[in-house]
């Protein structure tokens, strides 16, 4: 490309071609989405089996989500290092903060749930002592709804911002499951949570990975 003067049509064509190239500069590897999809699905299915087969693991299986932060940090660092597309897009920056905010919100929600449980337990005990029956209201039955509500939000935003329909529908799927869990038992809630994690993150992650590999191949061919 030289420093030549352009006709008006050539200028417009050049602008649209360059904007298009810059727009295609960001492709997520999809590995993070796949990781969290599989981790949440495993945790939920194990929880389902605990309830269904009436056994208890010596630890809360959802602690696995804290362990999964370590591979996520390694994946992010590796992706940063391997990024040969030397450009930072607005989408990339915006989505990074959306997902960091989501992570913070999830941990706050766990903290809030624990606080509610601790406040509710003495009330439930008192009710049982007075009436001889366990209270019909169980806060734990509503917990999956809060999580699914949050799962849907960044997924829906990512889907719409990146024009990536599998994630857009994945986000909507989380919200539909969120509503269903209000009327279903905890066992079903766990299965719906597992299904949501697969639909919203794991399968879109697989598609993202495929797109990423395709863009890498195209890049290599161009060079």
């Amino acid at each position: 490309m030289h420093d030549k003067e352009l006709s008006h049509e050539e200028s417009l064509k050049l602008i649209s071609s360059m904007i298009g190239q810059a727009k295609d500069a960001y492709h997520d590897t999809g590995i993070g989405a796949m990781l969290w999809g599989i981790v949440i699905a495993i945790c939920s299915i194990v929880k389902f089996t605990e309830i269904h087969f009436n056994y208890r693991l010596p630890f809360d299986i959802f602690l696995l989500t804290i362990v999964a932060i370590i591979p996520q940090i390694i994946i992010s660092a590796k992706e940063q290092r391997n990024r040969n597309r030397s450009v930072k897009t607005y989408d990339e920056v915006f989505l990074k903060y959306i997902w960091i905010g989501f992570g913070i919100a999830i941990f706050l929600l766990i903290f809030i749930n624990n606080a509610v449980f601790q406040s509710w337990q003495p009330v439930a005990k008192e009710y049982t002592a007075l009436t001889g029956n366990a209270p019909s209201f169980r806060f734990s039955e509503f917990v999956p709804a809060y999580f699914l509500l949050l799962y849907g939000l960044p997924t829906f935003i990512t889907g719409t911002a990146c024009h990536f329909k599998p994630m857009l529908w994945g986000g909507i799927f989380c919200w539909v499951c969120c509503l269903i869990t209000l009327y279903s038992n905890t066992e079903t809630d766990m299965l719906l949570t597992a299904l949501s994690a697969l639909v919203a993150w794991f399968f879109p992650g697989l598609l993202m990975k495929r797109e990423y590999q395709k863009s890498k191949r195209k890049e290599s061919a161009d060079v």
Partner: protein
Amino acid sequence: MFKDLDPILHAQLRLAVMSLLIGVKEAEFTFLKEKSKATAGNLSIQLNKLKEAGYIEINKQFRNNYPLTLCKITRKGVEAFEAYVLALQSYTQNPES
């Protein structure tokens, strides 16, 4: 009444650079070079012209002991680019004038 086209932007390589930078937060020299298919020397000259006009910011750093040049469009650059596109549109909509 037609507006004059900004002479800084009305050149192939400088316009290509501005069009690449308008859609991203920042880009490395290598990205601009790859996408514009320009030579390093020519690109360097044109980037400096854009910088002198206040349309872009150039930030030189080091990464793993290698020099790294980061370019970012400025507010003034965005305004100039928008004005340029508007002017172009007015020309193409009334080509006989």
